[in-house]
């Protein structure tokens, strides 16, 4: 596997969320769970339920995207002469991880 992607391209950005308002994964998951509970108790009117449903679909999509967006990589974090951090692939660790 190494640095190769595991069959996932970086997902196209969802249009449901602007760059500023896109929630973190855990927030998205929590909100989604809350929406599901609210819908399951049936406490809202039909219009509100539809709104919640649409929001929930957007959140679920976001969660899926987040789960798939990262590629497997192992890198070293090093520092140049001026103390600037940089990374380079940790080939040895990748090899080791391949054959435990």
């Amino acid at each position, binding site marked *: *596997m190494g640095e190769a992607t*595991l069959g*996932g391209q970086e997902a196209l950005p969802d249009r449901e969320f602007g760059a500023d308002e896109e929630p*973190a*994964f*855990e927030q998205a*998951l929590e909100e*989604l*769970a809350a*929406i*599901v509970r609210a*819908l*399951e108790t*049936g406490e809202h009117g*039909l219009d509100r*339920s*539809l709104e919640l*449903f649409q929001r*929930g*679909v957007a959140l*679920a999509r976001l*969660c*899926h995207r*987040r*789960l*798939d*967006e*990262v*590629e*497997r*990589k*192992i*890198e*070293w*974090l*090093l*520092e140049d002469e001026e*103390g*600037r*951090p940089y*990374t380079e692939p*940790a080939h040895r*660790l990748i090899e*080791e*991880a391949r054959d*435990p």
Partner: protein
Amino acid sequence: MSQPEMWSQTARWPRTVADPGRIWSVAELTARVRLLLEADPQLQQVWVRGEISNYKRHSSGHVYFTLKDDRAALRCVMFRSAARTLRFEPGDGMAVIAGGRIGVYEAGGQYQLYVETLEPDGVGALYLAFEQLKERLRREGLFDPERKRPLPRLPRRVGVVTSADGAALRDIIRVASRRNPRLHLIVAPVPVQGDEAAPAIAAAIRRFGRFGGVDVLIVGRGGGSWEDLWPFNEEVVVRAVAESPIPVVSAVGHETDFTLCDLAADVRAPTPSAAAELVVPDWYELRDRVVDLRQRLERAMRLRVRMARDRLERLAGSRGMFYPRDRVLQHRQRLDTLLRDLVATARRLVDERRQRLLLLSGRLESLSPLAVLARGYSIARDARGEVLKDARRVTPGDRVDVWLHRGQLRCRVEAVLPDNAPISGGTGSGPDGGEQDDGRGHGRSHDKG
């Protein structure tokens, strides 16, 4: 020489000793004393137990104090280079064992112990240092629970500060790979024991802070002796952990090992493997959870819509006013009532009309000119076909058609008599009014007849 000195020398210290030839300078004498003391190998590597008093750390970094017991005192000095290695902060009243050499401070005329190492008497220095630093940093608030930050549920990148060759890193990679097939791991390799370890670890933590590309940091090493783990108790490391802008999971040694790094970190993991478990979420579990929530979401919405439809159906049968459709139904019901009323009314009206029609047509029957003719009346018309009601409309010689009950007569007028004097022969003028004539006309003609 001045007068008083002359006096004092002669009066108080007369040179009456046997050999006045050698007169020492202070420096010479002090140097001699120093030479004697420093020539004694026993005094050049000495351990002495005592209690600290007059402890003073000079701004230069040198440390001065006096060691005492119940009968004597010994002046001590610890130069900056030696004082830097102190792993605890000495203080007055502290029982210690000092190691060093006896020397003479010539300018002060003092012999003293030049301290190379200082250990607390009774407890280990490391332990004491640990307790002291812990107390100091605790008072500073570095370990406060409210400083602790939650770990991200799904970190995109995980940073690790540990030895490149240690078991800790292998454990972390193994556990993390098992839990998340898409993990991005970034490792800052550092020595984890020895003198250079602490500064290197602190620097690596700060490097991650500047780099900023990771969501969480694991700082640690595998098991070892108390001394091996010591760098993780060093102030530089503890401060770097506390000041890290990235949440830190501390994973030093085994379950039973507790370091100050653990206390300053946002989360303490008992081992590096456990740190990986904590930090790297089970990707498959999260994915299943999202899938489950999504399915429940859709199911709940379908159910919600079905509920709404059912409710609507129920309401359609009642007089509820909740939805427009119910209102329509209500209207329709009223309309139905109105329609029913309307039909009844119309039928009544029609019935009335029909009855009136029957009545009228009966009367009409009696009004028919033909019926009148049957009773012996006749209708006279002029040549143009107009009904004649006035004799003066014709002149003798005009042709007149007379309608009888049966048949017509084509007649020629012989005379015109304007008044209704009886005419012999009994042929009267017909009743005025034709088919269109109304009852009144009929009545009049009737009267005439």
